């Protein structure tokens, strides 16, 4: 259940970002979560719902994009892996991990606080 820690860290970032943009409310958040990250989607959604109460992101919806495991194999090039493997599924060579470990916030939907409209697209 480290999803609660992750939700809390996420909320800290949302508070910072909302404040920096003069936003009163965050209504939607897009995350990119790698298949290797060990995060359980439902647990994160639940933790976020609970932890966001009383914050700028209260009631915000979470959109989670799952990022597949991709490696660069020295022989076969870039390929997506079926499982959590760093060796190439085709030839068995050791590859370099390109994606799958992500735990990042991609974007958020905000509602303006009413002031400071200029300067933001």
């Amino acid at each position, binding site marked *: *259940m*480290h999803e*609660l*820690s*992750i939700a809390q*860290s*996420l909320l*800290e*970032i949302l508070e910072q*970002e909302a404040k920096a*943009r003069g936003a009163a409310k965050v209504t*939607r958040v897009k*995350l990119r979560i790698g298949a*290797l*990250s*060990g995060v359980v989607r439902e647990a994160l959604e639940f933790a976020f719902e609970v932890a966001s109460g009383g914050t700028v992101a209260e009631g915000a919806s979470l959109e989670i994009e799952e990022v597949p495991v991709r490696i660069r194999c020295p022989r076969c090039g870039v390929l997506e892996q079926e*499982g*959590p*493997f*760093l*060796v190439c599924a085709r030839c068995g060579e*050791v590859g370099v991990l390109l994606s799958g*470990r992500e*735990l*990042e*916030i*991609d*974007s*958020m*939907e*905000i509602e*303006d606080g009413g002031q400071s409209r200029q300067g*933001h*697209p």
Partner: protein
Amino acid sequence: MEVKVVRDILEANEVIARQNWDFFAERGIYVLNLMGSPGTGKTSLLERTLERLKGRWRVGVIEGDIATSQDAERIARYGVPTVQINTGGACHLDGNMVRGAFGELDFDQIDLLIVENVGNLVCPAEFRIGEDDKVMILSVTEGEDKPLKYPLMFQVSSALLLNKIDLLPYVDFDLERFRSYALKVNPRLQIMEISCKTGEGLECWIDWLEERASGKRG
């Protein structure tokens, strides 16, 4: 309106972990983050390790547990400075919790710090604490499929200690299959077979640990 953010959710922990690492590096202290399931043998390994490092290394221990100080009491018998961190429900240690223990150990008197993480095969893998190496311990009673089910911990670990090999005749644990799974998940993983009960394989582990720690001391 939608705004791009693109930030690592755990960046705050990464920053603290980096500061912790700097703190230890300035003092030439090697830090090991020991992880594994509850009951896999983390504290037993720590005891066997302390016996063997006695007189050669000034060891300090941080014990992470959800609750109780039983492990810290077990370790304090070995005469090494030990501090207990109770996470109060959290399933892992993070950089901030380890920093909280800074005032409780005399780091001028320590050159090898072992941090025993909370018993858990998932969560500790995600949080750096300022360590030089993560090492995981897994016992043969847990089954050979674990690298496939909990790949992240296998991927972030430098070494894996396969414990309780004295029980191999009594359990259905396919050693070859396990090795192949673990190395597909992390081709660089150093696998050592040990028994904390009989002492088998522990020399190999101590050699590995001392070599790693010597590199840090310079």
